[in-house]
C-alpha cells in the first residue's frame, strides 16, 4: 500500500483554512503571525508556509474579515483582522458543512464490510 504523504494534513487543511481563520478571530482580532501560532497551538503547525496570507486576502476581499492597524513598538504598525457580520454567518454555515462532511468521511473510513448474503 502506498504510504500517505506527509503533506496530506497540509492539503486537508488547505480546504478548510479559511474557515479555521474565521474561527481563530471569532472572539478577538489577531494579526497574521498570531493566527499562525494559535493554529499551531491547536495542533495545526502546518500553516507556517505563508498560506494564511492569501487566505486572509481572500477573506478580506470577500468582506468576511475587516482589518485595522495598530502601532507596534520598534516596527511597522501591525495589521489586525477581525471577523465581520457576514464572516460570522459564513463561519456558522461552514461549521455545519464541515460537521456533515467529517461525518461522511468518518463513515466511509470506518465502515465495516457488509456481510454477503447468498
Amino acid at each position, binding site marked *: 500500500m502506498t504510504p500517505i504523504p506527509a503533506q496530506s494534513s497540509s492539503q486537508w487543511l488547505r480546504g478548510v483554512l479559511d474557515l479555521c481563520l474565521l474561527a481563530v478571530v471569532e472572539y478577538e482580532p489577531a494579526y*497574521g503571525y498570531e493566527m*499562525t501560532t494559535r493554529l499551531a497551538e491547536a495542533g495545526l503547525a502546518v500553516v*507556517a508556509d*505563508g498560506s494564511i496570507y492569501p487566505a486572509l*486576502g*481572500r477573506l478580506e476581499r470577500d468582506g468576511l474579515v475587516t482589518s485595522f492597524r495598530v502601532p507596534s513598538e520598534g516596527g*511597522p504598525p501591525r495589521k489586525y483582522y477581525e471577523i465581520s457580520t457576514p464572516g460570522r454567518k459564513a463561519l456558522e454555515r461552514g461549521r455545519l458543512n464541515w460537521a456533515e462532511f467529517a461525518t461522511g468521511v468518518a463513515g466511509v473510513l470506518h465502515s465495516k464490510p457488509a456481510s454477503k448474503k447468498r
Partner: protein
Amino acid sequence: MDDVLRRCRKTWRRLGVSTDATASMTDELRGDLQSARADGITAMTMVGGDPDGFARSWAASRGLVRPKWQIASTTLVAALAMVPGAAMMLVVPLAVTSSWFIEIFDPTRAYYPGSRAGRGTSGTTYWDLPM
C-alpha cells in the same frame, strides 16, 4: 529577512501591484517576519521557501494583480506615446540644419518674394535676395 521582502516587492512590482498596496503588504509581512524570527522561525520558512510564488499568490488573492493583457496594453500605449516625441527629437535637429528645410520654410519669402535661401560650400546659409 530583507532578501525575502526584496523578492516579494520585486514580484509585486512586476505584477503591476500599486505602490500603496505593495507598501501595505511589505509592512504587514515585515512585522510578522520579525515576530517569527523572535520565535526562531526563518523568513524563508514563513513564505514556504518560495518568496516569488508566495508574493504572487497573496497579491492575486487580494485582487491586486493586473491581467497580463492590461499590463501589455499599458506598455504598448506608453511606447506609442513616445514615438512622436522621439521622432521630433530625431527630425528637428536634422531638419534645421538641412538646406531643404530652409528651402521649404524660408522666412524671408514673406518679406522678399522671389528670394531663395541656400547653403554655401563653407556650410553657412546665404540668402539670394531679389534686387
